[in-house]
């Protein structure tokens, strides 16, 4: 086969879908070479659709080895030449190079964003032999047949080089920061703590850790102050209500009791009733950040999980491209046809039909826009397979949000009743829903509780039944969770929509933080303290967001990549020099939290026998076999031990068995499914299973 069009996609699923959409004659042909699939479609000419596997090229230092820093010389290389687990990439590059030789025209059909642009560019430049200037660009936001055909027939004449330049700058700057600072920490720790532990930090990871550590410091050094709240039980007509005192907080006990004495047992009067009607506008469509936040609020899905699910739904052509910061739905996406398609699902029929029956179908849009993609919306297509429950939940959330944006505003009424008690004002608040509007479409995600107050008139007299004085304390600030940290990163302008979720995960993986309500671990404290002390600029939020701004300017052709890289090198030069100077101090200070983190990794939970000890993974001196033993064994207090599977890695799940309450662990064996087990030999779940497995007598 010769003189065909070679289309490069980002993932194999997208390649198949594009081939199916563009093919007009017969069936598409799937071929494979060296385990790499590609598809042949026929249209006006032969089309070969070859997938990438995400990034095939990455940045590596020119000199080999990982035990030195600073590193400022780098180049783009195939991933397999530098990453241990990327052997498949060699076959992938070889296949694409071979297909490129006989191609006549080239089209980059990777996702139209920074990462997709860099992936496509590197393949066209390095694997296809400098075809990046000859290539055209397909731009689409959904993998539906109509949109793919349109983007093939009307491609952009060339690649978006500004976007590519910005993407390359981001990779290169992140690499420079990540490699140099991480190596400085890892090498110091290795030299002075006696063992190897990978410690990482980076341009965005450092400031993100700073948010959590600063919050942790505020919580741990928090001193509460007392205050008092006053409420009154007041009888008006036949009903008794609870009203709040005009001042939400009384600062002294004496004042609180003086108010109580003054109001107790006296007559009262309804002084004023204020009724207000107000509208609650429909929500704006989802961008990635708001989808991740709501998925966390409603389903407790971590941002990275939500992104992975949304990516799968996109590859199935069920929703539009999820890595977007847009809150806008341009007219070209044909709302009516999407709503009509959604009507095929009985869950949404009532709502979509009521929207379609109105003369104007227009969504409410937000302020944020993204030149590459619109907000996230459902395509209205039916799923070709059974979705798992997590995918179904995210699809339902996106669909209901999309439908809600077309709804009428909800109308509500609030009521504020002011009651005079011996010169003191108490207030009662009521709330009624007059028209549900869009909230009807967004159920069960939109909740609005009503507080109905029966009819009361101004000047009506009332009787004070009781004055309640309640002593309270101020509370520490709440810990970050994955959703709120994501929002904080967005507000501070650090990271991108595509990278934030991975950075949060990296903080967990490195044991800098733990638990869903993020608690900074000792290692996190020490890493941040080191960076703040010796190179405060690299963990400064302002500096990171400034750099972020500069990279956006490269995309807008207002800044040059070389200038940004030189700035980064200058900053890093002085930072790494200081880190090197204090190598010994840093290493010694890091050693204790590293040891603690290593020990904590081995702790599985509390000992179910003695309760005071911890169960820890140990190795027998005699047999070298691993088992679980109680830490109180070393104090000769508890001899509890349990056998463990000898293959795979053991991980504590930090949760208890639902049936017996013992800690649970997970065994991970390479290329096998994770195995979660409760190690209590007498757990009722096991007794039940044993009974089921017993042969019938």
């Amino acid at each position, binding site marked *: 086969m010769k003189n065909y069009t070679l289309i490069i996609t980002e993932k194999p699923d997208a390649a198949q879908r594009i081939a199916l959409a563009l093919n007009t004659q017969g069936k598409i042909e799937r071929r494979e070479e060296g385990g790499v699939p590609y598809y042949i479609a026929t249209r006006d000419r032969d089309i070969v659709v070859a997938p990438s596997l995400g990034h095939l090229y990455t940045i590596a230092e020119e000199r080999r080895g990982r035990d030195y820093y600073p590193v400022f010389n780098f180049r783009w290389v195939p991933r397999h030449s530098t990453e241990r687990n990327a052997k498949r990439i060699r076959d992938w590059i070889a296949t694409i190079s071979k297909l490129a030789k006989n191609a006549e025209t080239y089209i980059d059909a990777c996702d139209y964003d920074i990462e997709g642009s860099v992936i496509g560019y590197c393949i066209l430049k390095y694997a296809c032999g400098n075809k990046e200037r000859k290539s055209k660009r397909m731009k689409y936001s959904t993998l539906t047949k109509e949109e793919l055909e349109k983007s093939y027939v009307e491609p952009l004449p060339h690649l978006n080089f500004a976007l590519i330049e910005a993407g390359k700058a981001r990779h290169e700057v992140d690499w420079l920061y990540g490699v140099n600072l991480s190596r400085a920490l890892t090498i110091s720790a290795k030299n002075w703590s006696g063992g190897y532990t990978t410690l990482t930090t980076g341009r965005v990871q450092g400031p993100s850790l700073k948010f959590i550590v600063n919050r942790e*410091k*505020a*919580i*741990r*050094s*928090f*001193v*509460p*102050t*007392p*205050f008092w709240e006053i409420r009154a039980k007041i009888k008006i007509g036949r009903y008794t209500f609870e009203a709040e005192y005009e001042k939400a907080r009384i*600062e*002294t*006990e*004496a004042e609180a009791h003086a108010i109580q004495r003054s109001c107790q047992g006296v007559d009262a009067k309804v002084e004023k009733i204020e009724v207000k009607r107000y509208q609650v506008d429909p929500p704006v469509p989802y961008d990635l950040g708001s989808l991740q936040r709501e998925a966390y609020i409603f389903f407790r899905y971590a941002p990275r999980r939500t992104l992975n699910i949304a990516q799968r739904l996109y590859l199935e052509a069920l929703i539009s491209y999820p890595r977007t910061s847009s809150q806008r739905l341009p007219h070209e996406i044909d709302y009516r046809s999407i709503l009509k398609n959604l009507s095929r699902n009985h869950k949404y029929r009532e709502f979509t039909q009521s929207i379609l029956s109105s003369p104007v179908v227009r969504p409410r849009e937000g302020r944020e826009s993204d030149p590459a993609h619109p907000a996230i919306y459902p395509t209205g297509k039916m799923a070709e397979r059974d979705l798992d429950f997590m995918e179904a939940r995210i699809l339902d959330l996106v669909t209901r949000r999309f439908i809600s944006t077309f709804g009428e505003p909800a109308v509500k009424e609030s009521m504020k009743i002011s009651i005079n008690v011996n010169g003191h004002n108490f207030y009662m608040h009521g709330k009624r829903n007059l028209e549900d509007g869009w909230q009807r479409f967004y159920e069960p995600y939109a909740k609005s509780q009503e507080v109905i107050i029966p009819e009361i008139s101004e000047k009506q007299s009332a009787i004070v039944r009781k004055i309640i004085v309640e002593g309270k*304390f*101020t*509370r*520490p600030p709440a810990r970050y969770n994955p959703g709120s940290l994501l929002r904080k990163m967005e507000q501070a302008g650090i990271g991108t929509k595509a990278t934030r979720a991975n950075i949060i995960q990296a903080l967990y993986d490195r044991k800098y933080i733990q638990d869903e309500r993020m608690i900074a671990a000792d290692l996190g404290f020490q890493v941040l303290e080191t960076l703040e002390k010796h190179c405060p600029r690299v963990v400064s939020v302002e500096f990171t967001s400034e750099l972020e701004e500069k990279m956006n300017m490269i995309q807008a052709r207002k800044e040059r990549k070389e200038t940004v890289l030189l700035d980064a090198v200058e900053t890093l030069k002085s930072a790494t020099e200081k880190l090197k100077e204090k190598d010994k101090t840093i290493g010694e*200070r890091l050693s*204790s939290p590293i040891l603690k983190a290593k020990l904590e990794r081995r702790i599985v939970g509390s000992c179910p026998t003695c309760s005071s000890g911890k169960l820890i993974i140990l190795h027998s001196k005699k047999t070298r076999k691993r088992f679980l033993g109680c830490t109180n064994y070393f104090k000769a207090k508890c001899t509890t031990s349990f056998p463990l599977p000898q293959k795979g890695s053991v991980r504590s799940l930090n949760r208890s068995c639902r049936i017996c309450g013992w800690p649970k662990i997970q065994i991970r064996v390479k290329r096998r499914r994770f195995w979660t087990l409760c190690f209590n030999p007498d757990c009722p779940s096991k007794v039940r299973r044993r009974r089921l497995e017993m042969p019938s007598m």
Partner: protein
Amino acid sequence: MKCPLCDRIVDKKDYCTLHSQAYRNLVKKFESWRKARKISWQEYLNEIAENQFTGEWAKEMAEHLMRLGEKESVAES
């Protein structure tokens, strides 16, 4: 020199930076407590040490100061 409350290095004064911050918070909030409850420094420390919302380091510092107070009163007597 190590902080008397943890293993961290003492930075400038008697405690590490983290416990120093807790100490500053304790001193700062005493005025509000004194006005609100009319209590003495020792009573205040006792309340803080037992309060569920007190942060870990502030609690450690309150307990430490209580111990110091006891020692001083023993020395005086």
